[in-house]
């Protein structure tokens, strides 16, 4: 009998898993339905470049439908809730969609309402973010108008998508103001809830060094309680323990939550709306025929496109095993790989997993890209990644010579 696989979300994870499964099954074996509320697929790594005028909306948004292989049904609707006891998804347009296997791939959303002051009139003027396209475009205008003063970059709480992106924003801001010839009039500060520039010690040392080299101040263990801002004047970040960081322009990465329907679906999500799964099989704790991929999954690694890509291989295999009644394969190792743009045409690269922190050396083997070290090659790698995203990652292809397990050749130990 034909099985129905329903995939919620047509971003990175939903698109690549639907495409992998479409290749694995012919149409009499499995019907694949993908649901999303709109047809705009945003290349999220591109958002970082928008405020600096280095990328435009028309370069980073494409049709979701266009990247789904033939034979995949695309249903454009909001999601109301999932009833895991009835194996059914209720959509906003009244459709009830039954499933044999459900994949949650609806990512993370910005929970601005959780921080006092982020929803006020200053949003989009003196307080903004680059984590959505409209906000990134507002920020571009705010940066153009900015001709000196205090610019703070603040991460409200972890987890956030691409945890290196706020650091990259600092590095690019340094480059941007130097190019405009006003760097000496701009005070840049990075304000983080972590106790260092990054969570992993070796990478944190390198990144803290880069911040210092570029004259970016670092404020750690700052848990933002409220943002007091004026649309036309200075404001300040206030922490829960009553410390203050004044600013003229604040670039804030709000706290993240899972999609709102996850919280409306009994038993599906954790307290933040992410889906608890086995970190190695990606099977949901709530029901054996529910899986999660990408930012929507509550796994202890970065919320990043590279993680989603590596998860895809493990997940496609596990869905096939589940439908065959075979034991799942606990193969996902938390592999994460990030290019970190550092400005002036350079970038560094980090590669790690659940067990191994980012180390120095070369990737993926002795002759390869330098790890944890600024280079032009890594910057070119970052630029090439956009082509790779649309043409290799979304279609759900494996990369020749690069499996989903983290490579250890070429790495230097502690």
């Amino acid at each position: 009998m034909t099985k129905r696989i329903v995939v919620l979300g047509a971003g990175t994870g939903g698109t690549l898993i639907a495409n992998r499964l479409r290749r694995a099954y012919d149409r009499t074996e499995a019907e694949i339905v993908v649901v999303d509320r709109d047809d705009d697929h945003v290349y999220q790594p591109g958002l970082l470049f928008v405020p600096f005028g280095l990328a435009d909306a028309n370069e980073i948004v494409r049709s979701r439908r266009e990247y789904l292989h033939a034979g995949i049904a695309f249903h454009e609707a909001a999601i109301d809730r999932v009833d895991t006891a009835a194996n059914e998804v209720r959509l906003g347009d009244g459709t009830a969609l039954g499933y044999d296997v459900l994949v949650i791939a609806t990512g993370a959303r910005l929970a601005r309402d959780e921080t006092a002051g982020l929803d006020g009139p200053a949003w989009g003027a003196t307080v903004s973010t680059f984590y959505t396209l409209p906000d990134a475009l507002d920020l571009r205008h705010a940066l153009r108008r900015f001709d000196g003063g205090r610019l703070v970059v603040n991460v409200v709480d972890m987890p956030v998508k691409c945890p290196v992106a706020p650091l990259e924003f600092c590095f690019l801001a340094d480059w941007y103001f130097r190019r405009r010839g006003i760097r000496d009039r701009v005070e840049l500060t990075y304000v983080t809830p972590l106790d260092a520039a990054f969570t992993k010690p070796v990478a944190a040392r390198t990144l803290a060094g880069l911040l210092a080299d570029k004259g970016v101040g670092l404020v750690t263990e700052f848990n933002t309680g409220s943002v007091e801002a004026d649309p036309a004047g200075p404001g300040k970040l206030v922490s829960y323990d009553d410390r203050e960081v004044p600013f003229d322009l604040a670039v804030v990465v709000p706290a993240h939550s899972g999609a709102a329907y996850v919280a409306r679906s009994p038993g599906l999500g954790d307290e933040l709306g992410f889906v608890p799964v086995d970190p190695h099989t990606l099977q949901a704790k709530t029901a054996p025929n529910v899986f999660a991929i990408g930012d929507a999954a509550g796994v202890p690694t970065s919320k990043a496109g590279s993680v989603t890509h590596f998860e895809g291989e493990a997940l496609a295999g596990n869905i096939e095993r589940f439908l065959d009644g075979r034991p799942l394969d606990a193969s996902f190792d938390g592999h994460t790989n990030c290019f970190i743009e550092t400005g002036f045409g350079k970038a560094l690269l980090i590669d790690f997993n659940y067990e191994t922190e980012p180390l120095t050396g070369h990737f993926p083997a002795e002759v390869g890209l330098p790890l944890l070290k600024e280079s032009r090659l890594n910057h070119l790698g970052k630029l090439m990644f956009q082509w790779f995203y649309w043409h290799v990652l979304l279609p759900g292809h494996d990369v020749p010579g690069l499996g989903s397990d983290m490579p250890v050749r070429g790495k230097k130990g502690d």
Partner: protein
Amino acid sequence: MPTATYDGTAVEVNDEGFFTDPDRWTEAMAAQIAKEQGIDTLTDRHWKVIAFMRAEYAAKGTGPTVRALGKTSGVTVKELYQLFPKGPAKTAAKIAGIPKPHGCI
């Protein structure tokens, strides 16, 4: 592995002072650990958070973050900072005798 002595008993802690084995913890140890953290008296509100930390650790294998605590413990984030001014997640975990909560990345 370093040890600390609470309520007359030596327990293993990590280099930041977090218990490595939550089963070694007793309620009698909590007041002494709290004093080391600058909290002179543990009130009912403190105990509510301490009990919640231990229950979460037992259920999930890691202590909750401040934000998760604020959503699920029945104590708001603002009050959590009043109770544990040096950082609620870390301080309450230390007093509750559970390992340091994993930061997400």
